[in-house]
C-alpha cells in the first residue's frame, strides 16, 4: 500500500499515554513520523504563579505519577540549595531508599508495558505482579502507592523504624526472586529477541547529538547517570552506571533490567548505612531568592529543574525539563525505516511519559 497515513494515537491501545503520531507508511514500513502533543497539558509550571513555593512540592509531584518522588526531590534539593539548608544525614539516606523504590517500580512497569507492546501479555502480567510488592512497600512506608509525598524542604516527612527496614529487605528479596525468574525470558527468549534486537538503534554519537538521557544514553554506550553527582546520599553509596553498547531496543531493555538489581543493591546499602537522627531540619527565615538549576536521575533519565525566586512566596519561574522531553527528538530519528509492527516497541523503548513531557 503506497503512501498510507496512519493516525497513531492519541487514543491507541498500545500507548500508555496520549501521544499522536502521524505515520506515513508504505508496505508497512514507516517512511516518516511526526509527533503531536498537547492532549494532557496541565500548565503545572504556570501554577507557580498562584501556589506558594511550599505548596509547589505537591504540585511538582503530579508532573508524573511514576517518578513523583524524584520530581519532588529535585525541586526540594533546588530550594535547599537556594536557601542554604542542609538536610539531615538520615533524610538523605531515606531519600535514596524511596528514590530507588521508585526506580524499581517504574522499571518493572516499563518492562511490563514493553512486553505488552510486543504482544507478550503473560510477561506483562507477571512483571506487574512482582511490582505490586513495591507498591505495597510504598504504601506501608509513605502512605500511598504512587504519589509518596515524602519530601519537604529540609528533609523528609516520614521515618522508617527497624521493623519496617527489616520488612522492606525481606520484601525486596521476594521481588528479586520474582524478576530473576523472568530474566531468561526477558534476556534470552527467541521471540523477544526477534522483536527487539536491532530495532531503533542509536549510535553513541547519535544519542549524544539528539540529547538523549538516562537508559537511552546508557544503552548507546555513554556512561552517564545523574546519581554520580552525589546528591542525597548517592555520594556515600557504591554503584556504577549500567552501560550497554548496541543502542537498540534490546540494549535498553537490558539496561533497565540490570538497573532493577542495581536499585535493590542501593536500597540494601542505604538501609545498612542508615544513620540515626532527625528526618528533617526546621526551615525558618525568608522565602528563597535567586536562581538555581537542580538535577536528579529519574527512572527515565536526567531531570532538570530551573528555579528562579525573588524572595516572595511565589516563584518567578519554575522550569521543568523532564527526561521524556529530552528523549522524544530521538523518536523522530528512530521511527522512519522500521516496520509498523515495531512502532510500539520502539516507541515504548524510550519509556515515554507524555504527562511529563507536557506538564
Amino acid at each position, binding site marked *: 500500500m503506497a503512501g498510507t497515513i496512519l493516525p497513531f494515537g492519541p487514543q491507541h491501545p498500545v500507548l500508555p499515554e496520549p501521544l499522536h503520531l502521524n505515520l506515513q507508511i508504505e508496505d508497512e514500513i514507516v517512511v516518516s513520523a511526526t509527533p503531536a502533543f498537547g492532549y494532557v497539558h496541565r500548565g503545572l509550571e504556570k501554577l507557580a504563579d498562584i501556589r506558594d513555593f511550599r505548596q509547589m512540592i505537591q504540585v511538582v509531584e503530579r508532573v508524573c505519577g511514576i517518578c513523583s518522588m524524584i520530581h519532588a526531590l529535585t525541586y526540594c534539593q533546588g530550594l535547599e540549595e537556594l536557601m542554604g539548608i542542609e538536610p539531615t544525614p538520615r533524610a538523605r539516606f531515606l531519600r535514596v531508599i524511596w528514590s530507588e523504590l521508585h526506580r524499581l517500580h517504574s522499571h518493572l512497569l516499563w518492562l511490563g508495558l514493553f512486553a505488552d507492546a510486543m504482544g507478550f501479555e503473560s510477561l506483562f502480567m507477571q512483571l506487574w505482579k512482582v511490582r505490586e510488592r513495591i507498591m505495597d512497600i510504598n504504601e*506501608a512506608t509513605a502512605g500511598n502507592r504512587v504519589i509518596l*509525598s515524602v519530601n519537604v524542604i529540609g528533609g523528609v516527612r516520614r521515618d522508617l523504624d527497624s521493623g519496617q527496614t527489616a520488612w522492606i529487605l525481606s520484601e525486596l528479596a521476594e521481588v528479586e526472586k520474582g524478576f530473576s*525468574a523472568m530474566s531468561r525470558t526477558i534476556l534470552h527468549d527467541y521471540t523477544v529477541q526477534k522483536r527487539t534486537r536491532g530495532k531503533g538503534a542509536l549510535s553513541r554519537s547519535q544519542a549524544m547529538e539528539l540529547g538523549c538521557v538516562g537508559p537511552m544514553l546508557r544503552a548507546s554506550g555513554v556512561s552517564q547517570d545523574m546519581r554520580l553527582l552525589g546528591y542525597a546520599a548517592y555520594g556515600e553509596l557504591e554503584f556504577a552506571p549500567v552501560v550497554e553498547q548496541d543502542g537498540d531496543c534490546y540494549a535498553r531493555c537490558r539496561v533497565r533490567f540490570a538497573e532493577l538489581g542495581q536499585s535493590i543493591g542501593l536500597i540494601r546499602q542505604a538501609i545498612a548505612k542508615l544513620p540515626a537522627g532527625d528526618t528533617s531540619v526546621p526551615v525558618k527565615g525568608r522565602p528563597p531568592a535567586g536562581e538555581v538549576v537542580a538535577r536528579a536521575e529519574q527512572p527515565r533519565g536526567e531531570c532538570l529543574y530551573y528555579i528562579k525566586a525573588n524572595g516572595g512566596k511565589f516563584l518567578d519561574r519554575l522550569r521543568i525539563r523532564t527526561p521524556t522531553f529530552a528523549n522524544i527528538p530521538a523518536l523522530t530519528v528512530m521511527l522512519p525505516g522500521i516496520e509498523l509492527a515495531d512502532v510500539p516497541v520502539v516507541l515504548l523503548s524510550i519509556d515515554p511519559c507524555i504527562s511529563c513531557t507536557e506538564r
Partner: protein
Amino acid sequence: MVFMIPVVLKNLFGRCATRPYPQSPRQLFAGSRGQLINDAGKCILCGTCARSCPSQCLTVSRKEGLWQYEPFACVFCGVCVEACPAGSLSQLGQWRPAVRERERVVLKVEVKSEKSGVRSEA
C-alpha cells in the same frame, strides 16, 4: 519460549494475584493516607490547613463557624494534617468509597464549645 513455561505453569497451579475488588477489598497498611476527617470538637478554625493546602480544597470561615472540605479536589497529601496546630485533622485508614454524586463536607464548628454537627450537601 521455553523459559516462560515454568512461570506460567506455576501461576496455573498457584494462588491468583488478583481478587474480586468490590466484594473483597484489601485492608490498607497502617499509616496510609486515606479519607480526611476533622474532629469538630478540637478544631479552632485557625485556617492553617486552608493556607497550607496545595489543592486549595479547604475553606475555613471563622465568622460563620464553618469548616468546608471538597473531597473531590483533595489530593490526600496530608499536608494539612501535619500543619494543624490543634490536632483535629486526621486521615482514616481507608479510602473514600466511590459515589454517584459530588459531595462537599460542611462542618459546623463552635469554638470553645462541645456542640457540633455534620451535614453533607450535594
